[in-house]
């Protein structure tokens, strides 16, 4: 027996396979491990859509607030200030203010201004709308990621998918209740607004329709705790959550949970100015279009901090604070696709496919030995190394093992012996033709090679297409199949060839039945 490079490569592959699949199989702490797909370990998979129109609307509203603030800052008197159909409209009272107004508008990027006498109409340019939409999606990705990170779950995945979708994957969810809480946390718009109550008309709010309110540039909002209570607030907020820097849960003197928030310097200045000018009036703290409190302003509030109180449970306050801290969702998200798998189902799936894998494996191993004798055993060795190699490569690249992926491995077991079947058949043929054992082996490998190569490459083409067009579990299937094919090229062609070269001198031509499962007629 002598070693050759093929056997050495094969042994190296076997060691590599064993060493790198051990952490996954034995569940060791150290070393690279195969990630189990959500369908095997349980978890939540969601594909979210983003309602970008909403982002445009809120962009316009916040644009309106800043135009209004800038105008007031310069002491320009404006009238009929309204946001309608994605456009801001207002009228200057004094013609002399026009240059100043133009100056203010010129500083704002991405807007188109139309003038009709003293009437101004401000709208977003198409490019700006496009970029707002894009930003809304990336911002939503960041926001959702932040929220899930702060929630403290194991390795959630949040990624943009395609043009306008967001993929969220959260493994390790134990109960449906927990899953629901996560979904709620993601869905929270967390859109904080501080709005002025329209004190002139507030008394009539119960008799007003939303259309009437809109005529005065107001909106009607409901109370967070008591939906029968309504507030009439100015449509354009004083400021919104984009100027928020922090939000924390605290407890008030009655030991009720409240959320303390702080604003950045710009927000603090706007807040201070507004409260200074509006002492005695009410300020509504609005979260996701519901009024949480509407305290009367007693004095100028500097320092830029405020409080949202009322009706939170501790859990809720905690989630709201997370949502606020991680930023508002500029555009609401909605569910396009959701798959959730309980941990027990995942465990059952693993168990069932393991049973199938082991049974199928034993069947193939036994069959090969019965049919080919030692040649079958050699193929079986290659098959075993092949299995470990698949696991090792998957662990090394951090590939995800899914249920169809398990099926892919099971299928590979069936197909991986194919190469050896082809080779062994060729060797048998050559032996029947009366070739020497050494020659039969060498030629058998040479003859079989092109068929195996062509067959494997075509299967790889199908696998690559599957990977490119599949989602989640299907991708997992394509990955295991591709790795299986590549690994079988190494083990079934190179590895077994090396083993034969090593055994060559031991093969007894008179005992071909034992070696290749055949008998030569006429005692040749």
């Amino acid at each position, binding site marked *: 027996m002598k070693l050759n490079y093929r056997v050495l490569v094969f042994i190296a592959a076997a060691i590599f396979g064993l060493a790198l699949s051990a952490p996954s199989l034995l569940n060791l702490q150290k070393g690279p491990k195969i990630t189990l797909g959500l369908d095997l370990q349980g978890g939540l998979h969601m594909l*979210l859509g983003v309602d970008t129109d909403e982002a445009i609307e809120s962009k316009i509203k916040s644009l309106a607030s800043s135009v209004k603030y800038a105008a007031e800052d310069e002491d320009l008197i404006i009238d009929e200030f309204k946001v309608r159909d994605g456009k801001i409209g207002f009228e200057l009272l004094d013609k002399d203010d026009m240059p100043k107004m133009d100056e203010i508008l010129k500083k704002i990027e991405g807007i188109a201004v139309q003038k009709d006498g003293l009437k101004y109409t401000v709208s977003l340019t198409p490019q700006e709308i496009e970029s707002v939409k894009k930003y809304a999606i990336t911002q939503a990705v960041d926001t959702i990621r932040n929220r899930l990170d702060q929630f403290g779950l194991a390795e959630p995945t949040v990624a943009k998918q395609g043009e306008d979708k967001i993929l969220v994957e959260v493994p390790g969810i134990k109960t449906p209740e927990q899953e629901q809480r996560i979904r709620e946390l993601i869905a929270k718009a967390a859109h904080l607004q501080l709005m002025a109550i329209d004190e002139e008309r507030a008394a009539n709010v119960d008799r007003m329709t939303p259309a009437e309110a809109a005529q005065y540039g107001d909106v009607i909002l409901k109370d967070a705790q008591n939906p029968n209570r309504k507030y009439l607030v100015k449509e354009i907020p004083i400021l919104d959550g984009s100027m928020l820097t922090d939000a924390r849960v605290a407890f008030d003197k009655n030991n009720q949970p409240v959320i303390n928030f702080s604003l950045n310097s710009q927000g603090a200045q706007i807040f201070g100015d507004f409260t200074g000018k509006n002492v005695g009036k009410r300020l509504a703290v609005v979260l996701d279009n519901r009024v949480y409190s509407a305290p009367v302003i007693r004095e100028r509030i500097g320092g830029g901090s405020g409080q949202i109180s009322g009706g939170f449970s501790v859990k809720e306050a905690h989630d709201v604070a997370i949502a606020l801290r991680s930023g508002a969702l500029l555009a609401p998200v909605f569910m396009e696709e959701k798959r*959730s798998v309980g941990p027990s189902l995942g465990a059952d799936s693993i168990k069932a496919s393991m049973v*199938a894998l082991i049974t199928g494996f034993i069947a193939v191993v036994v069959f090969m030995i019965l*049919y080919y004798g030692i040649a079958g055993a050699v193929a079986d060795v290659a098959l075993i190394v092949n299995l470990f190699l698949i696991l090792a490569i998957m662990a090394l690249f951090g590939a995800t093992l899914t249920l169809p992926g398990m099926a892919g491995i099971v299928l590979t077991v*069936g197909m991986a012996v194919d190469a050896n079947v082809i080779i062994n*058949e060729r060797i048998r043929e050559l032996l029947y033709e009366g070739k020497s054992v050494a020659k039969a082996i060498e030629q058998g490998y040479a003859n079989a090679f092109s068929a195996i190569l062509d067959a494997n490459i075509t299967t790889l083409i199908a696998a690559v*297409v599957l990977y490119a*067009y*599949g989602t989640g579990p299907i991708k997992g299937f394509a990955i295991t199949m591709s790795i299986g094919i590549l690994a079988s090229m190494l083990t079934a062609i190179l590895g077994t060839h090396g083993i034969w070269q090593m055994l060559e001198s031991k093969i007894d031509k008179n005992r071909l039945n034992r070696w290749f*499962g055949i008998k030569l007629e006429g005692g040749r």
Partner: protein
Amino acid sequence: MELFRYKKPIPLMSKSKIFFALSLIAVLASYVLIFTKGFNYGIDFAGGTLVQVKYEGKAPIDKVREAIKSSKTFEGASVNYFGSDDEIVIKVRTSSKKLGTDIGDEARKLLEGTGKFEIRRVDMVGPKVGNELREKGIMALVLAIAGILLYVSFRFEWRFAIASVLALVHDISIAMGAIVLFNVEVNLDILAALLTILGYSLNDTIIVFDRIREGLTTVKSSKLADVIDESVTRTLSRTTLTSLTTFFVVLTLFLMGGEIIHGFSFTLLVGIIVGTYSSIFIASPLLMMMGFDVENYRKKLAEKKKREQEKAKMRAMYEQGTV
């Protein structure tokens, strides 16, 4: 042990008309089934919601049907046992866009009081995603076939490529027919199974074709039918063996892999049988039908060899530094 032992070519090609007629009937029947009965699209492609519930003990299926009756969301829902009688699935064609509370949460509330249960799986696919998945699926099939066509044309000859793709279409058609016939729910995993069949059956066909390609230069007869008969007979033992081992393994998957993988493994079983059959009885006769000419091919090969020899000669001359 030996199943087949090559002694002399089996005259398969002389009987190819019978197999052709058989396949034609099977393919036509499949399309009739597909177009009349149609696919039973699962939620992946049709959109909708699936809730899988496992009870402690036997699932009270009547109680469940009663419990969800009151809800508008579950109008027209189907409730069936899933694998065993302690597990059920509720399927409904509606989906919800809401994140906060979804159909699974609603089901949980409705089923309260029907016994001790655990919701193990909630899958919801919106209609838009369903459409996209279907389009992508068809695209994947088309692209895979196109890629294969290109590769086989490049490695063999265009007639081989067309024959292998026609054999593939034959296999996939019959597999799809079986899916419709046995009312298997078509989800993403079924698509994966179809693509696997594509790979597997092609694998088989290519190995036979490879032998024919070899036979074209080694078999003495210049009749294509003889070449094919000899080549197919020589690969018969390999084809059946590999199909057998793969069949074993997929069968264990079908029997022991659990309900979730049932449709997948069923489709594969059909595909393995049909794929093996077609690589022997359909793919090669197709070559004959397309008028593959052995003499012509040999002539071309000889020319190619001559050109290569000349090139080698030229190169050798250059290398020696004399022209």
